[in-house]
């Protein structure tokens, strides 16, 4: 034990472990530690013994075995001949896709709803309160199921697009098809020279940031207001479109078309992903809205009054004075909302979205019967994702913290 580092001259007696306040807490911590280890050892030993009794063992060899099942949404190449390990990776990527989409969308919904809940307009305020209360107080699984079943029943099946008297038609000059199996969008085909167009596009994004920095410098150094919004929009679109025209359209679009049973070509966003994404975003958005509202209310009214006295308009007061301060209150609970989205995405199987729980914790577990191994691995994956989110959000939080000098 580390308690031996004792500066006092008097000799150590055993009774001091209980009677001396310097040692007592350590004694109890040690006893608690031993009790925890003993309990874990008991549970673990029991498990190993029971498994041995049933002739089973703990082994991760199944990850290298052929999976034998297909997955519909594959961010990386995968077919039924690949291994269970690769199937788990596909599931992991699908989890990350829905988690990232959910977090971004929930943040946007949450900030807008949170700000509008404090709107001076009675109707807007009440509508937002209604949204927050109804979504916050019904379990997310119910929302996932409701949204999914509305989607599959309210949108047409692909076969409704067929024939001379089709009951459904595609949108936007026959480029987008909304079906109950998902949304089919045109997908880009990267022809020769498309790298240059992408390069120009990335350069123009860097340009936007540099322009904004320039505008800020102008404001701070010379007190001149340089417009930022429209030049940013122009920088975003015009150089890339010009490059596309000048280089003779290296990027073309692959339009979805009805062939056989389904739309072929283009990119498909599956109904299961949309339902899960939308449900997670709108559910968690309601919580984030409350965080944002709490954050804004935490800023004293004097701040906005002072800003108003300086002649700032309400929009600028919110963006320049209130929100930067409110962020310090908003970010810590926001981290736990992001973790919630990631963990709630494991409800994906309810709509047949093949996430990590659906592949590793679902089909792989059932086909191999390796329940303990699969669940332990599942826990490890979710733990890593959650800790990674916490880590990066904490970095962001520290950068936003009040700098005390």
């Amino acid at each position, binding site marked *: 034990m580390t308690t031996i580092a004792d500066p006092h001259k008097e000799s150590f007696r055993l009774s001091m472990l209980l009677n001396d306040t310097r040692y007592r807490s350590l004694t109890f911590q040690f006893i608690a530690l031993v009790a925890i280890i003993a309990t874990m050892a*008991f549970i673990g030993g029991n498990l190993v*013994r029971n498994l041995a009794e049933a002739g089973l063992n703990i082994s991760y060899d199944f990850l290298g075995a052929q999976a034998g099942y297909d997955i519909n949404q594959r961010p990386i190449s995968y077919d039924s001949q690949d291994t269970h390990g690769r199937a788990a990776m596909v599931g992991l990527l699908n989890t990350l896709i829905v988690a990232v989409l959910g977090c971004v969308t929930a943040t946007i919904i949450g900030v807008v709803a949170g700000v509008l809940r404090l709107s001076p307009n009675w109707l807007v305020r009440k509508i937002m309160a209604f949204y927050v209360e109804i979504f916050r107080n019904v379990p997310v699984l119910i929302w996932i199921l409701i949204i999914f079943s509305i989607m599959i029943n309210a949108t047409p099946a692909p076969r409704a697009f067929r024939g001379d008297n089709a009951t459904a038609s595609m949108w936007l000059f026959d480029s987008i098809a909304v079906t109950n199996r998902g949304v089919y969008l045109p997908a880009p085909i990267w022809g020769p020279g498309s790298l240059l167009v992408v390069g120009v596009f990335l350069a123009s994004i860097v340009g936007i940031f540099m322009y904004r920095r320039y505008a800020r410098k102008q404001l701070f150094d010379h007190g001149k207001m340089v417009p930022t919004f429209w030049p940013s929009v122009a920088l975003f679109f015009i150089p890339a479109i010009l490059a596309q025209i000048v280089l003779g359209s290296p990027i073309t679009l692959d339009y979805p078309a009805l062939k056989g049973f389904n739309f072929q070509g283009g990119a498909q966003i599956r109904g299961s992903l949309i339902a899960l994404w939308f449900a997670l975003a709108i559910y968690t958005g309601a919580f984030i809205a409350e965080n944002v509202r709490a954050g804004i209310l935490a800023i004293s009214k004097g701040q906005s009054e002072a800003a108003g006295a300086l002649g700032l308009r309400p929009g600028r007061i919110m963006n320049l004075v209130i929100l930067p301060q409110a962020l310090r209150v908003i970010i810590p609970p926001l981290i736990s909302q992001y973790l919630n989205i990631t963990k709630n995405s494991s409800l994906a199987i309810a709509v047949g979205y093949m996430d990590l729980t659906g592949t590793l914790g*679902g089909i792989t577990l059932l086909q191999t019967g390796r329940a303990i191994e699969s669940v332990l691995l599942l826990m490890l994956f979710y733990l890593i994702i959650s800790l990674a989110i916490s880590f990066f959000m904490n970095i962001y939080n520290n950068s936003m913290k009040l700098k005390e000098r």
Partner: protein
Amino acid sequence: MKKSVFLGALTVAGIVAGGASAATLDEVKARGKLNCGVTTGVPGFAEPDASGVWQGFDVAVCRAVAAAVLGDGNAVEFVPTTGKTRFTALASGEIDLLARNTTWTFSRDVDLKFEFIGVNYYDGQGFMVPKELGVASAKDLDGATVCIQTGTTTELNLADFFRANNISYEPVPIETGAEAVQQYIAGACDVYTTDASALAAQRANFEDPTAHVLLPEIISKEPLGPLVRHGDNEWADIARWTLNALISAEELNVTSVNLEELSAGTENPEINRLLGTEGELGSMLGLDAGWAKAALGVAGNYGEIFEQNIGAATPIGLARGLNAQWTDGGLIYSPPFR
């Protein structure tokens, strides 16, 4: 001190583990009820009726085993299980017997440490499509969206079938049969695939069953049977021979009508051994002499159970086919009661 606590924990763990594998028969008798795992609801096979009483082909196996062991076909606690939860429920001891359209496969028998006690329905995986699609063969399904119950052998068969025929498909994994039907009806998938018997059963509940056809291809062998945990051979014997008793009874023409009459004693020694008026078969199993009579007394023999739940006269309307007695050209065959 740490070491002694650890050793103590190990000792306790050993005792607990030793007690865990006590005889299932004694547990069931002490409990007075059989815990039987069934589906969450497949018409004809296992489904609660209007008054909440479980009915069906698989349910009848549960009731027969309960009657053989406890003398009462109603002494059953039905535990609904999904394709996902069934094996865990059985392995953990939550249920004593799983009678839930479960396919007998090598890995389930050997690797998952279960004991299949026989086959009560020979099935195969089929496809159902809406008639308006005009599909005549499963090989025309290139590019189709297929609804499938996840965690079942059908998922693997499907992948193999489409791969072998070099055609593509889009799987839509679903948790329960009810959800699959909901999506299939809404047109979110073109095809619904599962065991042909379950397809027929679920089609019977559709608004317009005639608008849907079963494709001629049967792409797999699905011998469905009840199963128990590995290791308790006495309990497995009881379940196995209860099922065999139902099958033998049909072969020997022992029905719910003539059961009482025949159990008074007959000229046929095999019937006498089966019904316990001759020989010691009951006590060899650790049961009463009248165990098989009790099992048959619940709903009759195998043929009667079939006709009553899923036969041609029911809305499910399944023909005996492979599930006829071997004497009628089917595969249903019981070893002799001797």
